[in-house]
């Protein structure tokens, strides 16, 4: 006996097997990302004032990546529709674009966004020395405007050896615009277009510093959640790209000759997964980049 309802729908449920399977899998994915997002909420609520950084991510790049993912969602549904209409060439084109979008998304993330963060430096000032660095923090201005206090000075570390060499007593930081002119109203909110770093170099004494680190996951719970969620999301994108590539290359696409409907079903199932990945990103983008 063969396993029934692989491509045909079972009359009473109206569904074929893999369709139920993928939705169950997606339900578990909802719970997975639900766990991560509820952690995000919990940690963000728990963060002391000033300990949840804002505006450290590159908004234009993030927006671009969002657009790329959305575009890929459109093309994958078009690829499926093409199969349904038995237009194999169109399917190949749309699927190719989808794969390309996924690869670009990953490339931007792994070769641009993340490494850019890994080179960015921040020094958290000890609570009793905040006043000393008022010129870089602008807390008087922030208090007047009712904004969260600033406790971190960010920029490019000019003397990275200071992180390991105990004889070097201070960090030389070429400041970000926000630390160079903290009282400027333009610094109150994150910038849409990345502002070039200022020419100003600050000398921050090590003994005034609570913690100094690049923008690694260890930097703060913000970056911890950012890297974990986008990392896991990236892994999903990678998984999707691999599956799509399999369906695009002859090894998977040849199924079309034997049973086009079966290939269409497979693409639909993989597409559902891809849309879900897109859907997660729709929440990731505003939560981390904008708000």
């Amino acid at each position, binding site marked *: 006996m063969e396993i029934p309802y692989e491509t045909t729908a079972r009359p009473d449920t109206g569904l074929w097997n893999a369709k139920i399977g993928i939705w169950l899998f997606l339900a578990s994915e909802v719970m*997975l990302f639900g766990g991560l997002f509820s952690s995000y909420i919990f940690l963000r609520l728990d963060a002391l004032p000033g300990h949840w950084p804002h505006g450290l991510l590159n908004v234009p790049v993030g927006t671009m990546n969002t657009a790329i993912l959305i575009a890929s969602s459109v093309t994958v549904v078009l690829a499926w529709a093409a199969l349904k209409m038995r237009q194999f060439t169109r399917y190949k084109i749309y699927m190719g674009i989808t794969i390309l979008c996924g690869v670009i998304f990953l490339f931007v993330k792994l070769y641009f966004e993340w490494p850019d963060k890994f080179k960015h430096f921040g020094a958290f000032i000890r609570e009793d020395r905040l006043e000393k660095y008022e010129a870089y923090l602008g807390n008087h201005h922030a208090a007047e405007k009712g904004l969260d206090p600033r406790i971190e000075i960010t920029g490019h570390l000019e003397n990275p050896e200071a992180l390991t060499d105990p004889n070097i007593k201070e960090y030389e930081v070429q400041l970000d615009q926000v630390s160079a002119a903290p009282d400027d109203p333009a610094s109150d909110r994150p910038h849409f277009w990345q502002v070039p770093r200022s020419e100003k170099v600050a000398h921050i004494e090590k003994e005034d510093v609570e913690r100094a680190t690049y923008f690694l996951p260890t930097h703060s719970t913000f970056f911890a959640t950012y890297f974990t969620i986008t990392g896991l999301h990236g892994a999903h994108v990678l998984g999707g790209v691999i599956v799509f590539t399999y369906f695009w290359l002859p090894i998977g696409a040849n199924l079309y000759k034997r049973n086009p409907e079966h290939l269409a079903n497979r693409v639909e199932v993989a597409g559902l997964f891809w849309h879900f990945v897109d859907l997660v990103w729709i929440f990731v983008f505003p939560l981390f980049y904008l708000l």
Partner: protein
Amino acid sequence: MDASTDLASHSHAGHEPHHHEGGHDHHELSFWRKYIFSTDHKVIGIQYGISGLIFLFFGFSLMMLMRWQLAFPGRSLPVLGNLINHLFGAGSMPDGKMAPDFYNSLGAMHGTIMIFLGIVPVAFAAFGNFVVPLQIGAPDMTFPKINMASYQAFFVGGIIMLISFFVPGGAAKGGWTSYTPLAIISDKGPGHDVFWNGQTLWLVGFILLITSSLLGAVNFITTIIQLRAKGLTWMRLPFFVWAQFITAFLLLLAFPPLEAAIVMQLMDRLAATSFFMPTGLVVNGAPLSLSGGGSPILWQHLFWFLGHPEVYVLILPGMGIVAEILANNTRKPLWGYKSLVFAGLVLGFLSFIVWAHHMWLTGMGQVVSAFFQTTTVIISIPSVIILSAFFISLWGGSIRFNTPMLFATAFLPMFGIGGLTGIPLAFNSADLYLHDTYYVIAHFHYIVAPGTIFAVFAGVYYWFPKATGRRMSEFWGKVHFWPSLICMNVIFLPMFLQGMLSMHRRWYDGGQGWNLANDKVWGLSGFEWNKPISIAAWTMGLAQIPFIINFFWSIKRGEKVDDNPWEATTLEWAAPSPPPHGNFDKPVVAYRGPYEYSLPGRESDFTMQCEPISESDRRAYEAAAMHAGH
């Protein structure tokens, strides 16, 4: 997703449904394809079963070792002690005396192995894989290759857990719950590898086990929804299938948040993040250089979000097995089938919103406590409905006490004790005193040890003929049963007393140093009770030997039986024993409910689900409907 199906269908496309024995198969599968990388649900079920039983015994052995330290703290374990010191590395049992770290490892790994490598694989995956497709009249699972992947993920996860015993520093020590921040700072620093250390391997192994469970759950649910035989409506499903269906949903939806938490703990360990690390933590006198701002409570929430449904993952399949065996051996329909099903569904639903009753001591406010206390007390209702229905099912039956039935009936009072002793723990005020004492240990072990594990044994004895075509020895089954029952109770009953004497569950010296004047129960102090308990535990280890021998001996030498040796009604007994690849010779159709025993107007006292309705049946059903109407 169903890349699986292609190959499978290809290999069969050429020939018609084959005849009885697998031996007539045109192209014989190689040994590897047939037994190791098999996609047949029955082989996978047996793989799960045997590896799970081995893990169960291994996990139990860890506890038998710990029982030595608890009964005779600081004394050298003769012969075995030095052997173990060689095996698990110097420092585990120097001079045969158990080192504190090794004791902690054993405790953490006992819990992990018993639950995730023992009971879940056997009760859920093994029985589910082997029995469910047969009971619903399906040729296989819907996704055979995913099924194979599920077992392989489980297997690799289990191997990683085992490897963790042999890395520098030994296996994980943070308890089976891996509470943070302890779990994050343990197994770190000098003498430990960054990756190859107990706790990190525990996390990595766990990710694989979760993956395995998720793949299994998707497969089970789809199979039950899609592959039910013609006529097998939802209310004609055996209760066992319902139990597996609900269990699969629990695994599917409760495991992923823990997976998220495990990824986060892995980040905490490997990338020095602070998901679960609070601000200002000082370790060994030095402040940690971390961002802080994390929350240990968050770990507990995510852990227990799985942890509590997991309790029902452990018990529901057991209940399902017991239901089948009770109906079969009382020779009458299960009492209250519908209430059982709905109680099971309610149980599954509620199990998702009771988890924080494991966290009474974390400083929750009254609002939260009141919420969880209420839901926890409510969840006892469906449990009581299920147990009551089982007890009432016994009423007026002419019971056959064969080995499966002995284990199944023993399940009832044992589960009852475990359940009822849980009620004081549901209440915040009582739990403040009992939390983390031996009382808790006794409570949940009554549910899973003489509860689920007895159900598992019952299931092994019951379905063994279906898997092999031979029956296990009744005599040796009884030799296995009676000592096990007695030992279980000698082990766990005194633990209630120890707990009420407020003995903490994690004491390395067995409570030797805990002296309170006149704190003796039945002539022994809390610490002194350890000795009889330990002796009973070792005796129980010995009592498993008849089972092991019986099991392997019966595969080749057991009494040969026909396809339906228990004269049961459900569909799996309509298939040949052992069922060939594809299970049934021709499609089966279900005409009636699952427990048609002693149907009036019939000569035999059982009527299989696949027997068409006769005229006398119709009259019997009408009479029953009339009766119900009045």
